[in-house]
C-alpha cells in the first residue's frame, strides 16, 4: 500500500498531512512544527535553506531570501496586480522571455515554479523522515480563483520536486472533503478562510460527483498579522503615555512586543484576560523600565472589530454577486488560524444564524482534505478500499446508545457506554434497597438520559429467592454481554444462593438512524434538567441511607448512647425525613452533612465505650458511621 500526502502550499505557510493508522493527520516538519514558512534562501555561505531556517537568516540576507512566490506563480509579469505586488519585494525580479516572472536568488534567475519546487522538496524530505518511506503520490491545493495556467504551474512545481501529482484541488474543496460534505447529497458550502496574511471566501456547490465553484472573493492583505499589529500599536501608545518613551524605534523592544502580542492573542482565545509583562523593556537616565499591561478579551474585541466587520462585509458582497441568500448556505467551514479568535467565530455564527464547522483544526483542515483526496485516488488506482474507510477486514460495530439498568430512585445506571466497540461485556455488583428484600427487578434500559423513565426499556425480569437480610447486604451481580451481532444478554446472579436469572434481547441495537439521532438530541436538550434531577435523587438516596444507618445505630446501641445525643439525632432525622421530599438539593445536602457529623460523633463514642468495656472480648465490627452512596437495586 502506497503512502500518500496532501500539501497545502500556502503564500506564507505550507502544511502537509497524511493518513496515519486510518486517520488523516497533519504532520510535523523536521523542526518539529506543523507550519513550514514558504520561504527559500541561499545563505551568504552558499547553502540553500527552506522554511524556518530561511526565515531566521532573512534579515541579514534580504536580497537572497525569496518569500510569497505563490503570488506570481503562473502569472504574467505585465499583469497589473503582479506589478503592484512586485513593488513590495526586497528581492530582484524581471520579466522572463515567455512573459512570466523571474526572481533572483544568489545570482541565479529562478521561476516561481522552481522556488515552489524547493519548498515542496523540503516537504518531501520531511514527510520521508516522518513516515519512514519515500512519498510519491500527492495532492496539492491552490486557491479557488487560480486559473488554468496557475494550476498547471503548481502541478509542475510538484513534479520538479519529484512527486507524482495526482491532482491540484481547490483549498475550500479540500476543507469540504475533510469534513466529508457532499458524499451523499448536494450541498452549498461556504468556506470562510481567514489566514495569517490573506482573507478568502469561497462558495461551493458540492455533490457526490462534482464540485462547482459558485463564487470567490477576498482581500489580499487582511489577516492575523493585522490583529497582532493592533495589539502592538496599543502597547506602544500606552507605554508612551505612561513612561514618555517611544519604543517604536527600538528594534529589539519591537521584536519582544511582537512575540508578546502574538502570545496575548492566542491566550485570549481561551481565557478572558491576558497579561503582557516585559520587564526591562528599555531604560533611560532614571534606570530600567518595565512594561506591564493587562488586555481583556472585550477590549481586544473592540480594538479589532473593524477587521472582523471587513471580513463579514466581504462575505456579504460575495453572496450578493451570485444572488444567493445566506440562508441557502448549508454548511459554513472555518479555515485558517485567525478563525480561532472567538469574536471571529461569533461574527460568522451571528451572520449565518448557525454554528460554523470548526471541529477540525482550521489551520490543518486544507492539508487534511488534500491527504484524504490523495488516499482516495491512490486506493482507486490500486484497486483497494481507502484506508480509514474501514478499520480492518473484521468490521466491528460500535454501540449507538448506552445500555444500563434502573437503580434506586429510578436512576439509569449505565453498564456499557455508547460508542463502545462490540463485542464486549461488563459486570457490576448491586444490592437491595430495603431490609429483608427477597427479589430484585432488573429493568434493562437503552438511552442517554439519567432518569430511567426517559429511556427505552428493552425488557425486564425478576431475580427472586434472595435470602432475607438487611438492605445493602445481598450481592447481586449483573452482567451485560453483547456479541458481535448485537445480541444483548443480561444475567443477574445472587452470589449467596447462586440463583441465576437472565434475559436475551435481540436486535435491540439495530434502531433506525433517525431514532438514534432523536434519542441523542433529546439527551442533549434535557442535559441540564436531567443532571439536576439526578443530583436530587442522589442527594435523596444519600439522606435515605443515612437515616437508615442512624436509626439502626440508635436501636442497636440504645444503652450506649447518651440521652441528649439521642434526642439530637432523632430531631435531625425527623427534620431530614421531611426535607428529603422537597426539591431543594442544597438543603438536603446541608442537613445530611449535619446529621452525618452528629452520628459520627456518636459512633466514635460507642466505639470507645466498647473498647473500654470489653477489652478482652472480641470487638464488634464498628457500625457504618460514614455511609456512602450505594448503588442499590429496588
Amino acid at each position, binding site marked *: 500500500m502506497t503512502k500518500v500526502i496532501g500539501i497545502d502550499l500556502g503564500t506564507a505557510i505550507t502544511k502537509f498531512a497524511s493518513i496515519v493508522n486510518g486517520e488523516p493527520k497533519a504532520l510535523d516538519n523536521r523542526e518539529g512544527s506543523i507550519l513550514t514558512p514558504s520561504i527559500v534562501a541561499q545563505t551568504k555561505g552558499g547553502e540553500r535553506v527552506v522554511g524556518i531556517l530561511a526565515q531566521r537568516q532573512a534579515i541579514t540576507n534580504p536580497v537572497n531570501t525569496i518569500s510569497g512566490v505563490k503570488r506570481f506563480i503562473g502569472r504574467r509579469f505585465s499583469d497589473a496586480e503582479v506589478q503592484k505586488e512586485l513593488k513590495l519585494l526586497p528581492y530582484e525580479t524581471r520579466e522572463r522571455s515567455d512573459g512570466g516572472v523571474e526572481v533572483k536568488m544568489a545570482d541565479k534567475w529562478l521561476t516561481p515554479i522552481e522556488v515552489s519546487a524547493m519548498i515542496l522538496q523540503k516537504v518531501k524530505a520531511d514527510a520521508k523522515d516522518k513516515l519512514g518511506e519515500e512519498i510519491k503520490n500527492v495532492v496539492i491545493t491552490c486557491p479557488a480563483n487560480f486559473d488554468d495556467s496557475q494550476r498547471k504551474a503548481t502541478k509542475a512545481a510538484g513534479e520538479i520536486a519529484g512527486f507524482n501529482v495526482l491532482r491540484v484541488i481547490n483549498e475550500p474543496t479540500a476543507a469540504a472533503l475533510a469534513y466529508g460534505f457532499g458524499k451523499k447529497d448536494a450541498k452549498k458550502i461556504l468556506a470562510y478562510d481567514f489566514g495569517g496574511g490573506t482573507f478568502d471566501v469561497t462558495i461551493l456547490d458540492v455533490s457526490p460527483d462534482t464540485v462547482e465553484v459558485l463564487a470567490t472573493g477576498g482581500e489580499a492583505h487582511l489577516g492575523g498579522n493585522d490583529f497582532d499589529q493592533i495589539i502592538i500599536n496599543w502597547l506602544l501608545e500606552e507605554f508612551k503615555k505612561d513612561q514618555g518613551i517611544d519604543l517604536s524605534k527600538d*528594534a529589539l523592544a519591537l*521584536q519582544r512586543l511582537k512575540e508578546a502580542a502574538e502570545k496575548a492573542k492566542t491566550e485570549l482565545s481561551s481565557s478572558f484576560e491576558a497579561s503582557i509583562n516585559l520587564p526591562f523593556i528599555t531604560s533611560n537616565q532614571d534606570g530600567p523600565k518595565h512594561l506591564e499591561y493587562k488586555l481583556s478579551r472585550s477590549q481586544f474585541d473592540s480594538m479589532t472589530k473593524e477587521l472582523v466587520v471587513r471580513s463579514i462585509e466581504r462575505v456579504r458582497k460575495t453572496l450578493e454577486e451570485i444572488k444567493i441568500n445566506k440562508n441557502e448556505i448549508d454548511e459554513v467551514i472555518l479555515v485558517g488560524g485567525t478563525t480561532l479568535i472567538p469574536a471571529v467565530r461569533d461574527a460568522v455564527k451571528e451572520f449565518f444564524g448557525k454554528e460554523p464547522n470548526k471541529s477540525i483544526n482550521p489551520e490543518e483542515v486544507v492539508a487534511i482534505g488534500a491527504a484524504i483526496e490523495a488516499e482516495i485516488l491512490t486506493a482507486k488506482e490500486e484497486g483497494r478500499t481507502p484506508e480509514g474507510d474501514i478499520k480492518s477486514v473484521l468490521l466491528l460495530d460500535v454501540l449507538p446508545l448506552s445500555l444500563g439498568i434502573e437503580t434506586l430512585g429510578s436512576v439509569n445506571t449505565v453498564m456499557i457506554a455508547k460508542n463502545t466497540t462490540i463485542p464486549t461485556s461488563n459486570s457490576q455488583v448491586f444490592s437491595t434497597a430495603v431490609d429483608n428484600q427477597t427479589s430484585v427487578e432488573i429493568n434493562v434500559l437503552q438511552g442517554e438520559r439519567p432518569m430511567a423513565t426517559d429511556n427505552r426499556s428493552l425488557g425486564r425480569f425478576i431475580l427472586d429467592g434472595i435470602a432475607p437480610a438487611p438492605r445493602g447486604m445481598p450481592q447481586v451481580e449483573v452482567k451485560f454481554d453483547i456479541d458481535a451481532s448485537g445480541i444483548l444478554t443480561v444475567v443477574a446472579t445472587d452470589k449467596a444462593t447462586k440463583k441465576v436469572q437472565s434475559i436475551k434481547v435481540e436486535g435491540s441495537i439495530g434502531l433506525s438512524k433517525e431514532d438514534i439521532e432523536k434519542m441523542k438530541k433529546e439527551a442533549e436538550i434535557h442535559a441540564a434538567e436531567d443532571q439536576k434531577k439526578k443530583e436530587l435523587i442522589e442527594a435523596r438516596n444519600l439522606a435515605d441511607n443515612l437515616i437508615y444507618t442512624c436509626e439502626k445505630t440508635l436501636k442497636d446501641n440504645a444503652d450506649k448512647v447518651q440521652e441528649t445525643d439521642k434526642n439530637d439525632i432523632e430531631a435531625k432525622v425527623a427534620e431530614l425525613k421531611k426535607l428529603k421530599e422537597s426539591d431543594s438539593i442544597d438543603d438536603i445536602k446541608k442537613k445530611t452533612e449535619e446529621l452525618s457529623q452528629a452520628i459520627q460523633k456518636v459512633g466514635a463514642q460507642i466505639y470507645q465505650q466498647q473498647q473500654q468495656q470489653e477489652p478482652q472480648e472480641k470487638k464488634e465490627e464498628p457500625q457504618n458511621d460514614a455511609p456512602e452512596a450505594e448503588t442499590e437495586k429496588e
Partner: protein
Amino acid sequence: MTKEKENIEKLLEESEAKKNEYFAGWQREKADFINYKQKELTRLQELLISVKEGFALELLPVIDNFSLAEKTIPEAEKGNNSIKGLILIKKQLEGVLKSLEIEEIDTLNQKFDPNLHEAIEEIEGEEGMIIEEIEKGYKIKDKIIRPAKVKIGKGNNN
C-alpha cells in the same frame, strides 16, 4: 456409507480451514493490540519529551528576564547580599534546565548558522559572524528548542 463419510470428511476439512482462518485472524488481532500498546508507549515517551520542551519554553522567558535584570545592576550594588541572593535564584533556575538536559546554544565567536541562530539585526563587525547575543538559545541533545537571537556583523563592504 462412503458417500456420507466423504461428505463428513469434506465438512471437517472445511471446518478445519475455517478454524485456521479464524484462529489466525484472532492471533493477528491480538498481536495488533500488543503492537498498538507498544506503539502507544513510544508515543507516550515522545509526548514526555515534548512536555519537557513545552515546560522549558514557558520557563525560558523568565530566565531571559532574569538575565536582563542582571545586566542592569550597577557595579556598586553587586556586593549587596540581597542582590547576590537574587542572582543565586537565577542560577537555581538554570540548574532546573540542566536537570532537564537542556543546554545553551553557543554564540560567542561563532559563525552565524540559521540551524541554531536567528538574526535580529546587522551591525558593524566581521561579516557573517555573531557580534552580540540578544537572547540565549537552548537545545535538548540535538533538538533545538529555541534558536539564539543574535546580531550579525555586516562586514566592511556594506
